[in-house]
């Protein structure tokens, strides 16, 4: 019986454990998490949790489930190093031997080297969310650093709760890495209508005792500053063990590192995108759980073909649900065939992504169509039918 050790108890790490059991793996499964408590969902932290504070609703599975599935969950235990020769993971409470190791170490908030940045709050973990939610109990002036999904989801929540919000994005548009300029524009308009004070193309120069100062010299008075300027993958454990990492731990189409006894998944893994052929790293529930299922299938003798799941993503901001099917490269052309629908095409006119606002039907059709094979412009038009 082989032992699988999983480092990281986020949604991907837990899914790997569950899928191993579902596929009939009988050997020990050890799941290490560096946070306390049960494995939980992160997406609601910047959405529903901010409103309802319901921590019970965050747990991915109850303790009884983990026990029934014989998943040896070790909360609050950090992996310190990997001894690849001995096939052991070192922890504060001793070494854990493995036959296969799955790295699901996730990502952490990026802290840019700004004066006073230590004054800013994070929104990554449940502990962060609790702290931020406490601040929302009375009327506040929030300053938000960054114009990505977490920043915007929080801004929408804070406005709904009646707080003042100023959001500063260093780049010229919102969610610039992830969506088309058309979507960025629509969301900027929506947030302005909500009353969010948007400052685009104006990087933060410093966080101060009374808010923040922007590069333009503009001063933002605020009671609290939220830092939401992106994340860094947690690759140090892998790197220290001699594995290749550059914006993510490098894995192949089977999600294996160059060590055949070590896989990596989710936010921390840089994997070959089956459609573009490029090495990508995705921060999404979909990538984490689809990677986990793939690895579990491989470890239980399923002999799966190379990973090629169609990426999907969502973000809830006020009453808009942004959905993205597929994965566009930044240079991919954008077309807007209808309001709140954007198609992205690569240089060979293949559909790479579909971005929609409150357009679940189109989104779901796009996911199905893209999974079946390459889509050209004429076929893409059928999505609107």
């Amino acid at each position: 019986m082989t032992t699988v050790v999983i480092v990281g108890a986020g949604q991907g790490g837990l899914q790997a454990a569950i899928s191993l059991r579902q596929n009939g793996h009988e050997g020990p499964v050890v799941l290490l998490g560096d946070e306390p408590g049960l494995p939980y969902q992160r997406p609601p932290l910047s959405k529903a949790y901010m409103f309802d504070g319901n921590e019970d609703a965050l747990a991915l599975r109850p303790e009884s489930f983990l026990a029934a599935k014989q998943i040896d969950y070790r909360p609050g235990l950090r992996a310190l190093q990997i001894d690849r020769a001995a096939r052991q993971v070192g922890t504060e409470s001793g070494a854990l031997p493995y036959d296969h190791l799955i790295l699901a170490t996730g990502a952490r908030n990026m802290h840019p080297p700004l004066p006073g940045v230590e004054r800013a709050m994070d929104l990554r973990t449940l502990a962060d969310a609790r702290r931020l939610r406490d601040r929302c109990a009375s009327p506040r002036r929030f300053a938000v650093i960054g114009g990505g999904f977490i920043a915007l989801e929080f801004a929408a929540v804070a406005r709904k709760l009646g707080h003042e919000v100023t959001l500063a994005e260093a780049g010229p548009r919102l969610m610039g890495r992830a969506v088309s300029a058309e979507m960025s524009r629509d969301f900027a308009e929506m947030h302005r209508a909500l009353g969010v004070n948007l400052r685009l193309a104006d990087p933060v120069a410093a966080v101060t005792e009374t808010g923040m100062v922007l590069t333009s010299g503009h001063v933002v008075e605020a009671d609290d500053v939220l830092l939401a300027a992106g994340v860094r993958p947690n690759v140090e454990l892998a790197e220290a063990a001699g594995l290749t990492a550059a914006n993510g731990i490098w894995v192949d189409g089977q999600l294996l590192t160059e060590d055949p006894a070590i896989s990596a998944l989710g936010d921390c893994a840089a994997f070959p995108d089956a459609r573009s052929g490029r090495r990508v790293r995705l921060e999404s529930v979909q990538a984490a759980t689809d990677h986990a299922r793939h690895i579990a299938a491989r470890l239980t003798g399923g002999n799966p073909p190379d990973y090629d799941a169609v990426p999907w993503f969502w973000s809830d901001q006020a009453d808009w649900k942004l959905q993205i099917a597929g994965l566009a490269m930044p240079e991919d052309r954008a077309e807007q065939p209808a309001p709140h629908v954007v198609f992205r095409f690569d240089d060979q006119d293949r559909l790479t992504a579909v971005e929609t606002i409150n357009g679940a039907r189109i989104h779901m059709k796009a996911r199905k169509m893209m999974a079946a094979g390459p889509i050209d412009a004429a076929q893409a038009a059928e999505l609107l039918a």
Partner: protein
Amino acid sequence: MQTALANDVDGIVGECGGAMMCATCHCYVDEAWTDRTGPRHEREDDMLEGAASEVTAASRLSCQIRLTPDLDGLVVHLPDEQF
């Protein structure tokens, strides 16, 4: 959906945690219970477009069925696959 996950019902995946984003908690409500579970939401209808198994008049996303005392004894049938 949450109740199914908590009780190890493998046929319900509930990937998105009930955000109506994934259609992997698809179920068929038994005919005897459809009056009490009520109709589908509009967005639920849209998401079912992407369900892996056949969608019928009895199809629901189980994350959108709130369990109440009135639903004690509810019978649902599961699709063959959720992906």
